[in-house]
């Protein structure tokens, strides 16, 4: 278990401050945060690259706050810092203590997994950014350390390799006893990989928990927005016949979970609003509304972002393209829609 | 303003002078300037180096190296118009102040356990000392060999040898008397038996490259007259 206790690090007008955080052995722990939130800084403190001003790091009961980097059994992985004077093969073999044959086998193995066998004799300068990332990943993975630190390992990879590498990472993680600490700003990456997620903002952890907890119970507006909630509604929740109903004067929404009554902030993800052709929804009988499309534009490969207006309230909604095409969704047309899930947000 | 000297400026003379002659020559220069209002630019360095400079630059008015040898060389090449001897250069033995090893003669330099600093045989003093040794060889066979065995270092200049003696790195060295006198508070001077000693002279010459013969001539004459008095003052034996 890696424990972070009362960590504090000042940088210019930025302060990283983590009071108490425990990362279990064999966890896949993802730090998720905006750019500039201090993710890299935190990772580098864990790795020993930077010294914290205060606080302790404890790995499996041992205080490693002052341990030299190379004795921490924590490997950092960063595609921007491959050793330029070594070939890819030599880079990957850099930390391997095993002898020639065994070493070569290990290198070959990891290269196969990461699809970089054809690069073995190149120098980092002659690699593309994505290739560099994969080599860095190989360098750390091949060593099977106790903790592996990944600073946005997938961030400059293309879709195909990103997808493949994601599953490779899962597999490698599943097969080994490594603890992985992964830093990213990509929520999807976190969801696909993490057991636990910590959302970090401005040097402070906003929320820690399993993926589910974070998705279903965002602690505050920031976490909610960061995890994809684009519609935030301020109003009151009342109990009626054992059901919890949110209302803000413009719209009434039945909540799924038991909620605290009174003033409340709730959030809806664009994906949780379904435009329906009939006035009946397959999944829900309540929460059916009709509104007008204010705007519609492509937001990804197979989705449109649709902005709906109900009683003067704008709601962001994500629609699969084929569906939108079938339904001939257009600006200014009127549609029915259903809110499948709305989540309460703790903070007001 | 600085008056440049390249031979075209009538108010100055460029004189190549052996570095060891600085003190008397500086004084002579001052007197000369006072009298004739002609500035003397002394260019001080070792004799051989000055000789090279004359050849390389094709410039200059007066040539006054520490020894006659270089004047002779330049003369052979036709660079000299006039020459005269000013002072004598007398080889002497120097030992550390107080003479701890009790060296009193040339023969003592060959005693076992004595550390010597000599000059390279290509050097004027080195060459002269070699000749002295071969003269002494008649009375003291093997002295050359014994002295050679005692030699721990060879200097490139007289001053280097003197420094070694003063610092105590060696017990004795052979230098010109005039150099030794300048350092007489740090070293003892032991004369070499006149029977073997060879005395050299310090000459002054007018260079063919001079652009102003008249001024060069004035200075040449001045050194030959008033100059000799000043040299005497500094402990040199002048050539009459």
């Amino acid at each position, binding site marked *: 278990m890696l424990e972070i206790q009362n960590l504090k690090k000042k940088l*210019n007008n930025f302060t990283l401050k983590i009071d108490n955080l425990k990362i279990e052995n064999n966890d896949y722990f993802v730090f998720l945060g905006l750019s500039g939130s201090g993710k890299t800084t935190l990772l580098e403190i864990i790795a020993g690259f930077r010294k914290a001003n205060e606080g302790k790091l404890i790995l499996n009961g041992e205080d490693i706050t002052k341990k*030299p980097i190379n004795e921490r059994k924590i490997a950092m992985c960063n595609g921007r810092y491959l050793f330029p004077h070594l070939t890819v093969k030599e880079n990957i073999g850099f930390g391997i203590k095993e002898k020639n044959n065994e070493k070569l086998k290990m290198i070959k193995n990891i290269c196969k997994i990461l699809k970089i066998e054809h690069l073995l004799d190149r120098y980092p300068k002659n690699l593309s950014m994505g290739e560099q990332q994969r080599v860095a990943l190989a360098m750390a993975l091949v060593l099977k350390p106790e903790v592996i630190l990944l600073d946005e390992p997938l961030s400059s990879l293309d879709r195909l390799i990103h997808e493949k590498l994601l599953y490779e990472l899962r597999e490698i993680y599943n097969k080994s006893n490594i603890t992985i600490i992964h830093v990213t700003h990509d929520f999807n990456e976190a969801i696909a990989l993490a057991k636990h997620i910590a959302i970090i903002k401005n040097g402070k952890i906003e929320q820690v928990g399993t993926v589910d907890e974070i998705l279903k119970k965002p602690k505050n507006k920031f976490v909610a927005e960061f995890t994809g909630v684009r519609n935030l509604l301020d109003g009151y929740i009342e109990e009626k016949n054992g059901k919890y109903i949110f209302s803000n004067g413009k719209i009434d929404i039945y909540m799924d979970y038991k909620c605290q009554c009174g003033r409340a902030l709730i959030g809806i993800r664009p994906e949780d609003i379904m435009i329906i052709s009939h006035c009946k929804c397959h999944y829900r009988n309540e929460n059916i509304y009709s509104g007008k499309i204010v705007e519609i534009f492509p937001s990804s490969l197979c989705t449109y972002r649709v902005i709906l207006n109900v009683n003067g309230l704008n709601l962001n909604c994500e629609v699969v393209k084929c569906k939108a095409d079938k339904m001939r969704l257009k600006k200014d047309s009127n549609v029915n829609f259903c809110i499948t899930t709305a989540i309460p947000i703790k903070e007001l | 303003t*600085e008056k*440049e*000297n*390249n031979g075209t400026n009538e108010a100055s003379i*460029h004189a190549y002078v052996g*570095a*060891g002659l*600085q*003190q008397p020559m*500086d004084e002579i220069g001052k007197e000369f300037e006072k009298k004739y209002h002609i500035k003397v*630019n*002394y*260019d*001080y*360095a070792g004799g051989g*180096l000055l000789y*090279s*400079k004359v050849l*390389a*630059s*094709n*410039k200059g008015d007066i040539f006054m190296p520490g020894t006659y040898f270089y004047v002779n060389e330049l003369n052979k090449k036709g660079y000299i118009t006039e020459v005269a001897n000013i002072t004598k250069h007398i080889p002497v033995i120097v030992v550390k102040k107080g003479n701890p090893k009790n060296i009193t003669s040339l023969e003592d330099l060959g005693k076992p356990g004595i550390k010597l600093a000599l000059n390279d045989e290509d050097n004027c003093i080195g060459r002269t000392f070699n000749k002295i040794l071969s003269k002494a060889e008649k009375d003291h066979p093997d002295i050359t060999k014994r002295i050679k065995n005692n030699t721990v270092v060879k200097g490139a*200049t007289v*001053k280097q040898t*003197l*420094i070694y003696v*003063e610092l105590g790195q060696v017990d004795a060295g052979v230098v010109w008397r005039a*150099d030794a006198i*300048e*350092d007489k508070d740090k070293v003892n001077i032991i004369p070499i038996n006149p029977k073997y000693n060879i005395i050299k002279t310090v000459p002054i010459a007018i260079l063919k490259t001079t652009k102003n013969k008249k001024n060069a001539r004035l200075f040449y004459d001045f050194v030959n007259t008033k100059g000799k008095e000043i040299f005497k003052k500094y402990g040199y034996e002048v050539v009459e």
Partner: protein
Amino acid sequence: MRNLLKFISLSALSIFVIFIIFAVLTIVGKVSIETLEEAIFSKEIQFAIKLSLMTASIATLIGAIVGIPSAYALARYNFKGKELIDSLVDLPVILPPLISGFALLVFFGNTLIGGIAESIINIIFSPIGIIVAQFFVATPFIIKTSKAVFEGIDEKYEYIAQSLGISRLKSFFKVILPMAKNGILAGMILAWARSIGEFGATLMLAGATKMKTETLPIAVFLNISVGKLELALSVAFIFLVVAVLIIFSIKTIVKIGDNYEP
């Protein structure tokens, strides 16, 4: 010994610096207050200090003007015989200064091209000669150090600057030069140090004329030549103090202006 590397490298540094300090102390030990005073208040030495500072500074400046672009050419462009030219640049360092001085003397005194230069500005036996000699001997240090630094700067910085509408020449001044500042400065300080300590080539080309071409190292030489060892050491000491003070203050000033490295 947790940090062996730190221990070893600091030890090496200490050894070398202590060695230097001891060497300098032996000089100081031989200097008495009286001779030091005599040296400081001597018109001749004051002149030599001024002359040395001036010539070394001018030589370094000219060396920088010629050397920095040369370094850039060596770092960035490929041409035939580059390796050879790179080696030729080392020549003034390799050559014993006396020989360099001699060659320069012959060049300006006895060759056509040199003669033309000489007839325009009087170089031989003049303070200009000192500058030329120091320039010749010191410029390679600027070239070599700057080249090493230029090579370490990614060309893309220049390209990007140019793609923002800045001309090649301007991109050099606005991007490469400031990025290489520290390295270039290190080279210039080395060159300045070499210039101010230069003796052989100066002796040959400019001569050792008092109150005219007598720099500090030549003053030291002249004093040694007449056996005034103590005075020579005093001069050397003054010289040392002046040079170290100047180098130290330049470095400090540069450090202060150097706020982009935290």
